């Protein structure tokens, strides 16, 4: 019921929301500002604006190398995570089987686990196996955390999936593979798609797992951390801004693709 008390409460909630949104975006704004100064040290208000540091950063071969490593790790993680998590999500939410409840908890455990400790545990494990640390071991480390997350994301979609659809397709003569291709995957597509977005972006931004498992290879968050600890350089805000913008562009691009897919589906 829309009484005055309710309206006042709702107005307060909206004001609070706006405050929280500002809170959430303060760091990104600060980083962007810091990247636009042409002086060596950051002071605010900015004495002299300029794109000098962007130019320096973008032309650095080292930075290119790091961006490439980060993108490659994220891409490989995405592909593997989505395949594993797709079936994992079916087992999580679609089928009723004996070990399901234990399985569900097993999937949740890595999410409910301090990532820095997980990174160290993996370091120890790789060492025990005698593996050389490189971007491949980082992919493995990312997957330990990202596969469960993507499984949950897809599982949420699977919960709303009506198994009768699969049964109807079987009944109409489709083989197991045809059912998967013609019914299950297309119906679960939105979940698979948002799962891939999550996989890519979480890998792209991950720091605690990369820190202990990349060996000689370096990802963007690791590089930034090393520079931050070493002392101030405006290259850090520039690369930070690039990482942020990259994530936003990727997210918006994904959102647009999703919209287009939906439109095509409803138009068909």
């Amino acid at each position, binding site marked *: 019921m829309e009484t005055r008390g309710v309206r006042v409460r709702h107005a307060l909630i909206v004001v609070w929301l706006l405050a929280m949104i500002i809170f*959430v975006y303060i760091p*990104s704004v600060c980083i962007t500002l810091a990247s636009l100064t042409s002086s060596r040290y950051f002071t605010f208000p900015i004495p002299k604006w300029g794109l000098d540091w962007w130019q320096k950063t973008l032309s650095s071969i080292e930075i290119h190398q790091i961006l490439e490593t980060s993108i490659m790790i994220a891409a490989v993680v995405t592909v593997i995570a989505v395949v594993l998590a797709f079936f994992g999500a079916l*087992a999580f939410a679609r089928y009723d*089987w004996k070990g399901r409840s234990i399985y569900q908890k097993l999937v949740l455990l890595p999410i*409910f686990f301090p990532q820095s400790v*997980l990174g160290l545990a*993996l370091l120890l494990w790789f060492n025990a196996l005698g593996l050389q640390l490189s971007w491949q071991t980082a992919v493995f480390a990312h997957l330990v955390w990202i596969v469960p997350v993507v499984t949950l994301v897809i599982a949420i979609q699977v919960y709303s999936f009506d198994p009768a659809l699969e049964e109807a397709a079987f009944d109409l003569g489709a083989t197991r593979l045809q059912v998967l291709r013609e019914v299950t995957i297309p119906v679960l597509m939105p979940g698979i798609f948002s799962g891939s977005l999550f996989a890519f972006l979480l890998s792209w931004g991950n720091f605690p797992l990369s820190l202990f498992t990349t060996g000689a290879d370096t990802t963007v968050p690791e590089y930034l951390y090393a520079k931050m600890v070493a002392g101030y350089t405006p290259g850090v805000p520039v690369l930070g801004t690039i*990482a942020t913008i990259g994530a936003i562009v990727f997210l918006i691009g994904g959102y647009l693709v999703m919209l287009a897919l939906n439109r095509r589906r409803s138009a068909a």
Partner: protein
Amino acid sequence: MTARTEGATAGGGVGFLRVPAGFRAALPVILFLLVGFAAPLLAVIGFSFMPARTFGFTGQPTLENYITIFESTSYISLLWSLGLALATVLILILISYPVAYGLVRVFGRWSTLVTLLFVIPLFVSENVRLYGWLLFLIKNGVLLGTLKTVFGIEAESMLFTTGAILLGMVYVYLPYMLFPLTLGISMVPNDAREAASDLGASRWQVFKEVELPLSMPGLVIGCLLTFVLAVGAIAEYKVLGGQQVIPITHDIEIAFTYAQNWPLGAALSVLLMLIVGVLVMIALRRFDLDKFLGRR
């Protein structure tokens, strides 16, 4: 929820196909997590019983690492980690509840956009965002610089204080509280709320008797998730805290890196895992995941 079925397991399949479809689908993930999660943890546990400063499993098992921990000052780090994590959780409940409530009840069709706005920062590495706070809080930074030039106020920077660490943790773990809480609040049927009000309950009584207990699963998950993540936090202490407070994760990292004492680091990790594991087990023991995630 009655719609889940055994799946088409029959069809005269042989061997592997006779295994329940659910298990077949789960197998890759189970195998992967056994190799990638369970085995490393076992390795850590095993390592924690190895003699100090060794790098293999060949030594004589010993409890010396645990004895070292209890004789050292690591318990102070542990208490700091647990205390600040607890404070983070409490602050997060207070600041995210209104937003979560709004997402379910107030924002209507704006909810998707608001959700997106809170999701985006998740994908930017946390140390980048913490670095943004550093630039905001630092002397001559965005906050103090603005205060000085616009208002002529000279203030002390709050950087490198416990407050700054807390700010960083609240900031970084906000989405992990917000989204489970939103899911929890959306589980409260509007009918139950109206029925309580119709039966004479005041706004506060509706909250206490109906909304809070029915959204409890979301609150529990949110608290658990943020607590566990905050206990494992390290970047917040380093970027925003200077060396004011040393968390347990720092001790672990030192043991693994500078000190080159892996068994000691492993023993500290085991301690942390025990605390976190017991908490998660207790909270999730009787938790109906299907009901929580399956609701639309």
